[in-house]
């Protein structure tokens, strides 16, 4: 299913991003195992789909650009948008320089205002509900931006997924909303097969007249084309689209399950073989990319190790929207009862 649309240059770009994402995630997993970060969850195995997604988005701030409501497997998309690996490592290490949460949140929980990447929340499927809001804001006349939301297969059992279908297809105002489900056939330890009577998640869109598609998300070309088509449709029709991508989960669910390597199709292997066969890149070239990324990520990792943990008093920051440079500190909350920041315990376990 090789598309002609993808130039060799683009393919090399995709390859580089996929490798970077993979090397990054493998570093995060190692950090977790070494106790340098308390929890890992991320996107290895979804690169063939998630990198094209990031590259195809209309990137910018405000309703004229695309909003992304991502689940916690979005690292390849964020890198493809231009995010820096080192920032993800910072969030993993929970240092004060973590730009996404200031050392507060799990890794791969992004928030990038200038690119409309709204906060990634751990609460499964809530993103589908919030996505109808940014999409609604984009119903403004002449608006070019669309909203994209991603989530897993198991999460579609939450009523919130259905709510997104209902709200996006309302005759009184359809929404420019691209709903993506990455189906890896698992929710943590629970196989898809026992819990889902529907053949494809995407079929659930049909009753609402929503356009749907099911694709092999392990294939770069198929993913690119499907995304392009879906985005074009949503952007021009201002109507919803439900896209299901079948993907692999290469290191299990998260560090909670030990993050061992699983025996599933590896989209990066598949891609590299095709690139070689099509003579887009030689094996050597690819190896060089891997080495380059490994070096880059190792250096980033080393730098992050030097960076400080957040100051205890920052817990009160950004409770509120910032006003006159006050960092949105909730001084009021601080004054209730005992202010533990006056007396932090000895750093036994950092």
């Amino acid at each position, binding site marked *: 299913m090789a598309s002609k649309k993808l130039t060799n240059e683009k393919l090399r770009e995709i390859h580089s991003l996929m490798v970077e994402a993979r090397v990054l995630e493998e570093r995060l997993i190692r950090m977790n195992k070494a106790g340098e970060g308390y929890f890992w969850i991320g996107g290895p195995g979804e690169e063939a789909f998630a990198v094209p997604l990031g590259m195809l988005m209309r990137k910018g701030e*405000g309703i004229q650009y695309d909003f992304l409501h991502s689940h916690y497997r979005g690292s390849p998309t964020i890198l493809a948008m231009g995010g820096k690996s080192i920032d993800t490592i910072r969030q993993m290490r929970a240092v004060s320089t*973590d730009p996404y949460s200031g050392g507060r949140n799990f890794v791969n929980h992004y*928030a990038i205002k200038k690119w409309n990447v709204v906060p990634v929340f751990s609460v499964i499927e*809530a993103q589908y509900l919030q996505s*109808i809001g940014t999409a*609604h*804001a984009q119903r403004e006349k002449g608006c070019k931006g669309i909203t994209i939301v991603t989530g897993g297969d198991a999460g579609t059992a939450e009523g919130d997924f259905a*709510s997104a279908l209902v709200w996006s297809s309302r005759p*009184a105002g359809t929404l420019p909303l691209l709903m993506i489900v990455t189906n890896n056939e698992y929710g943590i330890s629970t196989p898809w097969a026992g819990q889902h009577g529907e053949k494809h998640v995407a079929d659930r869109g049909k009753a609402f007249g929503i356009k749907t598609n099911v694709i092999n998300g392990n294939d770069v070309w198929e993913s690119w084309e499907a995304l392009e088509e879906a985005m074009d449709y949503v952007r021009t029709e201002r109507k919803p689209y439900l896209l299901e991508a079948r993907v692999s989960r290469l290191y299990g669910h998260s560090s909670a399950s030990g993050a061992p390597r699983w025996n599933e199709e590896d989209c990066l292997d598949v891609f590299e073989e095709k690139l070689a066969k099509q003579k887009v890149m030689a094996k050597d070239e690819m190896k060089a990319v891997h080495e380059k990324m490994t070096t880059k990520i190792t250096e980033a990792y080393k730098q992050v190790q030097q960076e400080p943990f957040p100051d205890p008093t920052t817990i009160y920051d950004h409770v509120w*929207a910032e006003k006159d440079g006050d960092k949105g500190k909730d001084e009021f909350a601080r004054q209730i009862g005992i202010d533990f920041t006056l007396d932090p315990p000895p750093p036994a376990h950092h």
Partner: protein
Amino acid sequence: MASMAQAIRMALRYGEEHLRVTDIFGEDVGPPLGGAFTVTQGLTTAWNSPLDERGIVGMATGIGLAGKRCVAEVQFCDYIFNTIDLLKLAGNASWTSNGEFNVPIVIMTPVGSGIHGSIYHSHSFDAWAARIPGWKVVMPSTPLDAYGLMLSAIEDPNPVMYLIPKALMRARGTERIPGEPESDKELRAMIDQPVDPKAIKEWKPRWPKLQHYTVEIGKAKHVQEGSTATVVSYGRQMPIVEEIARRLQAEQGISYDVFDLRTIYPYDWEAIKASVEKTGRVIFVNEDTEIANFGEHLLRRTCDELFYSLKVRPRMLGGKQIPGVGICPTLEDVSVPQANHIEKEMVELATEPA
């Protein structure tokens, strides 16, 4: 004088005209009904949502994340309890993202008993809302405050929970809203939608020349000056407390320092503190169920900071810890505090020997 429903309606009108409100929505919020309590009649940006509170709160959050301003309604707070997770998310979006995003939205919802609402039209939400960090929580007890708090809520860059005591929805105030016409009849003719379904279609409101009038979030109203005992309340119990305080002053010469809290978070601790330091006697009155009640928080803080100024035990009066408010008045009247209960407690507070 405008009723509270009319006051909020005018505030919303001001919001869509002058404060960049693009969406006012919820179940039956748009035409033809204009809200279960007429609050959203005639508004340009009001629209009907699907019957889905989770969708409503999610939609509002998303609109806020996109940088637009909206006011969403949950028809009765009794039906907001499936959205607590989403309210928490709206409240923590700024904090979790370390300030990248803020969510400048208003969610309004009618609360409390007093209309024979039975189990599912009588819930309170003040204590619950107080447990959701990142939100400001307000609750007016007069039309003028309702107007001023709504403007402040809309202007606030944070999520604001706007609780409307439904028993006061039709009550008229004693202070005129800036811009409001002199005659009630005139106001009704201008902004109340006709009842006849056919007339509704043709109808267009004529809005008075509304003005920018705000009530600062976080500031209590010092309703009555007094020296013997402090009474802090809000919402539906507020006019009851006021009436009792006035009467007891006249009849028994008891002098109450009375506050309408108006904002539940962040509440006006300075005002309470100054008063309790003066009186040494305090009661917190509301109607939410009494375990882990917001009044219990105020009482705890009083003990934290003012214990040695207290002359008698501090008091909290709330609703009973039972699964609901029964529809029969014989039940409702003993489930949430009524005037006679409040009066008895206020008298005891003021007269208990120190």
